[in-house]
């Protein structure tokens, strides 16, 4: 590889590299979940892992989300930090007891003596006419729970760095990635590195409005910003990367500077992260030039039909128009 051309990697392969390097680094780490041997389930995020580390460490499990998630927690408590993957995060609902009642509370319940270094890895599968039980983005639910950290990378660099941080973290971390981002390419260093949990990234500096994005919405916003510039709007773009802990400082600093804010979530609007961020901005007492704007999914289950999906999901056009409207500018 030449020095002047940094290595690029797909988002899914960045996760794959993180898993290879971490499992290589620490032979106590176990990976389990449905479909770890099957790209149909997990894309190419688990390529070569079984071959390299064997079926005792990389375990393709029966469809038993509750027990398999609990098993990952028990292994982590016993000294084997585990990653449990849910290739469609909708199935994680079967595992709410181990995730929420057990793992999230364990450190507290033990008076700070026993922490659970487990990673709950859930993949969002939005779109593709998969309907209400194969497309949900449940980060808001998990973020509500004390004791859980929640991360959602949007770039290949962050996907690798946050997976590494999640595995190294002594606490339970919910790592949520997005199937639609899997083929996106970006610069990914070959060595082990970590992206700090709880630190947002400012993707672009600007003075007119703060755009707060996360996961897939960060990807969409990146495409929208050049058009905003053409329309005379100089936006500051924040990619949250971590939902919990939320990087309130970075958000407030930016909003104070721009005086305007739009929050673009990939989950539902009510009681979700856009509501939480709005509340924190409101509580801070920052004077805004225009009311807080939220763009999120309607409070509706995910539909199947492509026409309904088009109405349901966010896209570049919806984001662009919403921002132009804040400035009372045309968006044609």
């Amino acid at each position: 590889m030449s020095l002047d051309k940094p290595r690029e990697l797909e988002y899914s392969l960045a996760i794959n590299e993180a898993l290879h390097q971490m499992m290589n680094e620490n032979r106590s780490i176990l990976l389990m979940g449905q479909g770890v041997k099957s790209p149909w389930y997990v894309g190419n995020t688990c390529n070569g892992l079984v071959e390299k580390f064997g079926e005792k460490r990389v375990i393709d499990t029966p469809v038993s989300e509750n027990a398999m998630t609990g098993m990952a927690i028990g292994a982590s408590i016993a000294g084997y930090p585990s990653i449990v993957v849910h290739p469609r995060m909708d199935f994680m609902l079967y595992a709410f007891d181990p995730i929420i009642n057990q793992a999230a509370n364990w450190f507290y319940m033990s008076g700070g003596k026993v922490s659970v270094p487990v990673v709950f890895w859930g993949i969002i599968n939005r779109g593709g006419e998969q309907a209400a039980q194969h497309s949900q983005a449940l980060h808001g639910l998990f973020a509500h729970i004390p004791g859980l950290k929640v991360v959602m990378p949007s770039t290949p660099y962050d996907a690798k760095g946050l997976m590494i941080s999640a595995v190294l973290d002594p606490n339970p971390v919910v790592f949520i990635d997005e199937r639609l981002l899997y083929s996106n390419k970006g610069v990914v260093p070959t060595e082990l590195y970590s992206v700090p949990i709880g630190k947002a990234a400012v993707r672009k500096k600007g003075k007119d409005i703060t755009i707060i994005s996360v996961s897939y919405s960060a990807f969409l916003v990146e495409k929208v910003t050049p058009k905003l510039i053409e329309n005379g709007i100089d936006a500051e773009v924040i990619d949250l990367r971590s939902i919990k802990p939320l990087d309130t400082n970075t958000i407030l600093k930016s909003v104070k500077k721009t005086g305007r804010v739009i929050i673009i979530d990939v989950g539902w609007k009510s009681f979700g992260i856009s509501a939480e961020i709005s509340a924190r901005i409101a509580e801070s007492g920052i004077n805004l030039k225009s009311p807080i704007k939220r763009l999120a999914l309607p409070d509706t289950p995910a539909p199947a039909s492509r026409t309904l999906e088009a109405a349901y999901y966010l896209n570049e056009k919806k984001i662009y128009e919403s921002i132009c409207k804040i400035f009372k500018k045309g968006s044609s």
Partner: protein
Amino acid sequence: MKISYKKKELLNLYKQMVLIRRTEESFVEPILNGRIKCPVHLYSGEEAVAVGFSAYLKKEDVFFGNHRSHGHYIVKGGNLEAMVAEIYCKEDGCAGGRGGSMHIIDKSVGMLGAAPIVAGTISLTLGAALGFKYEKKKNVAVAFFGDGGTGEGVLFESINFAALRKLPIIFSCENNYYSTHLPIRETRPNYPVYKIGRAFGIKSFQVDGNDILKTTAVCEKAISTCRKGEGPVFIEFKTYRLRGHVGPSDNIQGTQTDIRPIQEIEKWKKKDPIKRLERYMLKNRICEQKELLNISKKVESQVFAAHQKAQISNFPKGEEVEYYVFR
């Protein structure tokens, strides 16, 4: 059961059962007078189950318990003073007053945890067993749950996977015939609990859970099976709690939910595991009444001291409520 035990071994089993009984009974008064407020599920009557594991257990073996787990912790070598203080929800408790009676967690002795979500720790036990198997360690992980736990799907998921991977885990069902207030005939078809294990092709036993000689023998068999890599094992211990589901009596603490017939309770009192061992040892002239009394006296003062210490310990400070959310 034709296993012969030496006097020392029998007295040790006796001592552990008495320690659990005296400890459990010592909570009655402070619960009734309000010094202990957190829900306390007493193990009185079921001691021979936990103690049955004691003779063949190694320090590196692990337990996961449930809401009724004081006995499990004591058998695992737990710190009595720390447990009693925890039940008072004091700062010196094993969880600093954050867990209370239902979360007896002490990794230092292999009590990896206890939690009152019924059957919730069974899958956690599976994880510990998976680790042992992966590292080729000859250790055993024991999951304790009750007959109520057999209603939870996670038990079946866990047995399936344990059987699939031949994990060194013992599914230890303490069948006390009541799922809180509800008799077993109202929660399960009339079919033996231990046969749940057979459906997955694993070694499964049913045993009189109030006979310490029998529980010890079956635990020996289960533990050695797991150490040889031939686990998992399912054991149904038929036993009975002499106290309420929670606290000394469900009928005097605000509700009238203990509907167990007096005759049934009396029948089980006759099968008290401690009295049975006493009778066995005296009848076979293994020891004298005086020796047993001495053991009880020693245990009494140990328990008394733990209460005294717990009562003068401080409650955790209010300003520390947000400690220990994350490490």
